[in-house]
């Protein structure tokens, strides 16, 4: 087999959602297994809507914060919604996840479209998804500003002048969105990655503007037996729009998000064939697997699919870096306020 190996590395992630969550242990076990497979990150979905069919659901960011100290390298990417939450709190929680994981945090931005979630809060009516996604983009925008509102070297501890911080390196963000405003600065110093990784599910057209503008990672949901052309088209669109926003399209990692059900070793090898095929053809930058049953699928994914991909030279066999950005080959972003101050 001599299909050309693309120069960009293959990125793999896995969802560790499970029904009726009531303790940390199954999540910790799944994340450690994914780390054993050297995957880039795990995701955990969340919503402020009613309970799902599975029963109890825990706050996803809290679960992954609980998992952080019992893992060392794997990225931790919870879903956090932007419709009924406070942008200031969301920004602080995500940057705190980055602090407690020492640079492994991400954030899948999502909106709450349902009436049920609106009634849980009772302070906003439901709005069209288009408006909610415009707001989600604004929340991602202000979060980035708040993360930058502390320059990396703002803390000086200068005993001679009695100053703990250099206040010239702390910045008001003065952000005015359509329905909210935030003064800043953040209460949390700039996190280890500068900006935790932002992810958006760009399967539907509505979130694509926010994805192209703000996301480091975009998911495109697809079935493994679907023709890859549709996924490729979304990736092309996202990259094109990112470029229009003045971004380097190479800094947007597009992952096919596929449901998997692995019953036997042969299924694991078939999945490796699919991954290798789509990746070799340049359809996507990698995959986000959504196991139907994590206890059944994850061991086969890690012990079956991953070694085949490693053997074919498509997947690394160790973590060369420590942060999620390093796994994703994304640079640590410059601080917009520091840049502005230095060029002023």
């Amino acid at each position, binding site marked *: 087999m001599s299909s050309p190996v693309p120069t960009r590395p293959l990125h793999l992630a896995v969802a560790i959602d499970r029904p009726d969550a009531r303790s940390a242990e199954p999540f910790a076990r799944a994340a450690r297994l994914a780390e054993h497979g050297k995957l880039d990150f795990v995701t955990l979905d969340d919503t402020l809507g009613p309970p799902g069919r599975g029963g109890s*659901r825990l706050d996803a960011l809290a679960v992954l914060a*609980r998992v952080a100290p019992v893992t060392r390298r794997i990225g931790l990417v919870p879903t956090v919604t932007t419709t009924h939450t*406070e942008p200031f709190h969301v920004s602080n929680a995500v940057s705190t996840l980055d602090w407690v994981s020492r640079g492994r945090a991400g954030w899948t931005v999502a909106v709450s479209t349902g009436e049920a979630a609106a009634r849980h809060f009772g302070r906003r009516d439901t709005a069209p998804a288009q408006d909610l996604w415009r707001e989600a983009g604004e929340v991602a925008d202000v979060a980035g500003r708040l993360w930058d509102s502390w320059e990396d070297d703002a803390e000086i501890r200068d005993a001679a002048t009695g100053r703990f911080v250099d206040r010239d390196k702390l910045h008001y963000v003065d952000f005015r969105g359509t329905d909210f405003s935030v003064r800043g600065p953040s209460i949390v110093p700039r996190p280890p990655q500068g900006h935790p990784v932002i992810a958006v599910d760009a399967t539907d057209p509505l979130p694509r503007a926010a994805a192209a503008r703000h996301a480091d990672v975009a998911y495109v949901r697809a079935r493994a037996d679907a023709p890859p052309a549709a996924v490729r088209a979304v990736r092309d669109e996202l990259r094109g729009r990112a470029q229009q926003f003045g971004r380097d399209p190479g800094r947007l990692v597009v992952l096919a998000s596929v449901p998997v059900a692995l019953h036997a070793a042969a299924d694991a090898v078939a999945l490796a064939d699919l991954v290798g095929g789509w990746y070799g053809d340049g359809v996507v930058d990698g995959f986000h697997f959504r196991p139907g049953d994590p206890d059944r699928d994850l061991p086969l994914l890690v012990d079956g699919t991953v070694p085949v991909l490693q053997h074919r030279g498509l997947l690394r066999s160790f973590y060369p870096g420590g942060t999620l950005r390093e796994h994703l080959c994304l640079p640590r972003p410059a601080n917009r306020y520091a840049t502005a101050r230095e060029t002023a």
Partner: protein
Amino acid sequence: MTSRTGRKQMHLAAHFPGVNNTTVWTDPRSGSQIDFGSFEHLAHTAERGLFDFFFLAEGLRLREHKGLIHDLDVVGRPESLTVLAALAAVTDRLGLAATVNATFNEPYELARRLASLDHLSGGRAAWNVVTSSDAFTGENFRRGGYLDHADRYTRAAEFVATARELWDSWAPDGTPRPFAHQGRHFRIEGEFDVAPGPQGHPVVIQAGDSDEGREFAAATADVVFTRHGSLEAGRAFYADVKGRLAAHGRAPGDLKIMPGVTVVLGDTAAEAQEKAAEIRKQQVSPQTALLTLEQVWGRDLSAYDPDGPLPDIDPDPDGAITQGRVRLGDPFAVAARWRAVAEAKGLSIRQTVIETHGRPSFVGTPQAVAAELDEFVTTDAADGFILVPHLTPGGLDDFVDGVVPLLQERGAFRTEYTGRTLRDHLGLPLPRRE
């Protein structure tokens, strides 16, 4: 809590050093206020000392002085609930208490985050309910700062009641049931998605010494975080708050009173006093002395020499030059008291601020401090203490190594954790389901 022999035992909690000048950052032993390792260190110390819980404060806006970000104290901290979820992974029995504002959060989301922490920690979650109404903090939030001062406690009380309705909303067979709350501050309905946690209700802590704060605590809280440092003031507060419980159908043991205290230890009494004086000097730098003076005077006093005498001019009672911080009482009265102290002892500005600055609550040898703490508890001035160290993260190492064993010898403190949950440690029953 009482031991098997019926002796009253104390509860202990560790307060992570805050963003104020109690925390000394100029000391060479002072570590990071933001790295997870610092939180881990203090939590491990507290658990080694068999403490009831670990406590995190909260800030929602950086403090300002004269329109500029206050730069003399430790600035910046992580978001509490997320840090505690991570600490749940590296501790086993220690309670985990987060301060979270009831004004700038909504019941459904916060009840969910607290119930999640209770599950993730195996029943160790606590919530310190605070309120604020100021437009200054509100500038960071959708809600803004419109809440009337008088509404702070009514909103907080309704918030706690609503959260408890959500925690109680599941059916006994372990399936979700619809809830509906129609109140003045919240009108919400639906289904809560987190099963009841191991504690049923996370422990509720309340801080605030005003009359309405005491009433709120008596009606609602499991623990009161107070400031009363002296034995007499502590007993009066204790009697007052415990006396309010019956009217709410509660027993005296249902509410634990825990003053926040500072401790300085030495091999001799004289050495401890010397260390305490040194710490107060570190806490009041020349710059901090001037700033403290400006907070009282309500004026720009930057032209004054901190090593010179107090200003002759009078305070400006309307000069609100500090934001994000409570002002220290009536400025004329404070200024008069400070002038009297300065004149009587011939003190400079800095020396006056040091002299009038809050003193450590307990200073002495480990034996003396253990005896004094025990006296507070056995004479009903407190049920325990929230210890506020001045150093991050090692500030309680000496206390845990030196004082805790002496408390245990006296029978004044537990020698092992006998339960798994924070309610177990505090001797609080599982909540009745409403």
